[in-house]
């Protein structure tokens, strides 16, 4: 029989063991359900609760010019690139407070994580570089010069290739992540912004903002194999400025935000056919799906609001007020 001292030690060890086991388990994917919207000019992330009729439940003050946002895998943390303070803010999702920062080069804009979340790849708009940053140590592992004004970054499924756009150089840089060097460049349309990868990994789509088009690149050859031209009702081609794209889990539909043409375009991934357009708010730059993929949330930078599109009917069913110049919208699902 253990004496009380040994019993305490045993129980303490058991408690520690259990705690360790629990920490090692991946957290449940069932998130808060909240909608997070970064706002470039009001320097905040607004948190809405769809279950409470989209009431604002928190106004998180971030570093200045918050833009791209990503959750970590278990949705315990939300990372926000803050372009005017040259940091990535880290928000604790449980407390909805900024708890840490990762310094970057000038004007971080968009970023992605690698699979094991040890590193992130961030485009630094005013520095003309893409940086690879070790998250734990907050050190810059590699810095890759790009053409001026890099923006979109996307990592291949096998993590061997990072693609980055240069808005000024009208091209996509193909970067080998091991060596950190540009191994190829793909000239696309005018002012390329962001990416989406098809689920089979065969095609890389790039939005060419000032061409009003999306260039579709065959990843095997790094050649542009198709170009989609968008002309929503009531708009001329010069007014169509596609920026953000998002793809559903099934991979059959790409949703393209058409910028100053104030519409979302629905594109059939396989056939490249533009199936239709839905009117949203002013300067729609980014769209994200709800976790059940029944709704599409669209950030409208110049009407300072978020449109909610019902994906069954493809109709704009609601608009909610956001902060000033909303940039990215994410759902914690």
């Amino acid at each position, binding site marked *: 029989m253990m004496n009380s001292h040994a019993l305490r030690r045993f129980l303490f060890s058991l408690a520690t063991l259990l705690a360790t086991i629990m920490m090692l388990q991946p957290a449940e994917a069932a998130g808060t359900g909240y909608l997070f919207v970064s706002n470039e000019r009001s320097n905040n992330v607004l948190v809405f609760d769809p279950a409470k009729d989209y009431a604002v439940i928190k106004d998180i003050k971030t570093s200045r010019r918050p833009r791209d946002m990503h959750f970590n895998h278990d949705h315990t943390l939300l990372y926000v690139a803050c372009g005017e303070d040259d940091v990535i803010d880290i928000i604790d999702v449980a407390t909805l407070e900024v708890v840490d920062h990762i310094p970057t080069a000038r004007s971080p804009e968009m970023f992605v994580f690698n699979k094991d979340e040890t590193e992130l790849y961030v485009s630094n708009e005013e520095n003309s570089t893409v940086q690879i940053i070790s998250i734990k140590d907050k050190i810059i592992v*590699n810095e*890759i010069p790009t053409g001026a004004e890099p923006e979109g970054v996307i990592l291949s499924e096998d993590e061997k290739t990072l693609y980055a756009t240069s808005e*000024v*150089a009208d091209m996509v840089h193909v970067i080998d992540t*091991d*060596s*950190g060097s540009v191994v190829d460049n793909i000239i696309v349309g005018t002012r390329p912004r962001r990416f989406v990868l098809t689920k089979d990994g065969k095609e890389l789509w790039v939005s060419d903002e*000032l061409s009003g088009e999306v260039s579709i690149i065959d990843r095997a050859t790094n050649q542009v194999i198709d170009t989609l031209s968008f002309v929503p009702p009531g708009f001329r081609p010069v007014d169509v400025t596609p920026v953000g794209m998002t793809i559903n889990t099934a991979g059959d539909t790409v949703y393209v935000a058409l910028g100053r043409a104030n519409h979302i375009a629905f594109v059939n991934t396989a056939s490249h056919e533009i199936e239709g357009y839905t009117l949203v708010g002013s300067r729609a730059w980014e769209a994200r799906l709800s976790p059940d993929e029944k709704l599409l949330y669209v950030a409208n930078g110049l009407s300072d609001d978020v449109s909610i599109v019902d994906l069954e009917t493809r109709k704009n069913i609601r608009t909610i007020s956001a902060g000033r110049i909303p940039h990215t919208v994410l759902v914690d699902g």
Partner: protein
Amino acid sequence: MARFTHLVAGATALAFASALSVSTAFAQQQPAQPPAAAKPTTAVDIGYVELANNPMYDSVYAYYMVPVRPLGSPLAGAQLGIADAQTIGKVIGVDFGLKSELGDTIDDITRTVRDWSGAGMHFVIADLPAAELLKLSDAVADLPITIFNIAANEDTLRGADCRANLVHMIPSDRMLTDAMVQYLVSRHWRNILVLQGPSEQDQQVVDALQQSVQFFGARIVEVRPFELSNDPTNRERGNVALVTGGIDYDVVYIADSDGEFARFAPYETNNPRPVVGASGLVAKAWSWAYQNHGSSEVTQRFEQTVPRHMDSQDWAAWISTKAVVQSVLRTKNGDYPALLAYLLSEKLNLDGGKGNPLSVRPWDHQLRQAIPLATTNAVMDEAPITGFLHQTNDLDTLGVDQPQSTCKFPG
């Protein structure tokens, strides 16, 4: 796989110093070379000409940031354009360079341009007053050369004095007055008191303003001359309060290419009214304070290279290099006819950092463009103002449209 933890060092612009007659160190980094064998490169040089002792570049006016005067030599804008082009150049195997000439006379400049043409140059950026620009244009009309006008606003250059080898990157007087009048009409400030300075340029601005007012439904209540003067017998013309008194109006529009009179006009008018035109709210091709459409990124890159704000002529020089680079890129460095055809076509689709893509109007070779309306530190709006529509391209609500154009390219 092992990961190399090294920093990829960027090179400076030293490699391009030979192509620049002004050596300036750039903070910008060069993109890393792909591991494959380097392509053989073709040199494409762009020319830049400017006149020594050009009265537009009085340093006192620049110091006071008089809005109708440039803040410094726009050569810096062209140099930024060349720096921006390096990434494209490396990928397509073209070495974009700049050759500049500061000439004492227009004859010196003409000689240099002809020499450049002989060496294969096809595009020259010209920072010249209108008369000298026409002399240059006529003197090289027989050569395969196109000249970008980055400084002369005169409407006649787009009209009766148009030339096939000129492309105007800086807006015309009429585009600037159209931009302002659209704004005034949108604010319902339709009754305009015009103060006109003594120079020929001021007359041209007032002529343009008359056209704009007619087009957009505003009204000039009176045109009153002003003079820079402290002559007590001439007080009516020199004193802002006196010259703006005894009449009602919504706004005072000052046509003052010198800029000194206009500089001291805001808050000195007899009636409490906004001042626009040469001070107060000014229509310009570019403002350092412009923040929409990625403009601040361009300005930011510029201001890293020279210790001053980026201004209209800087932008015009920058967009000139960009037009050449895009033409070379998209024609795969075609011959001169192919380059020129692309430059002048609807496909040009230039990203000028001002929103809608830019292209050249075929009827007068004016670059169509949005025009910001700026104070000293903010852009209040941009023309074409929302609601002003055009049959084919809303940018063509600014400036002389095709049916009204008096330009007939000679030959």
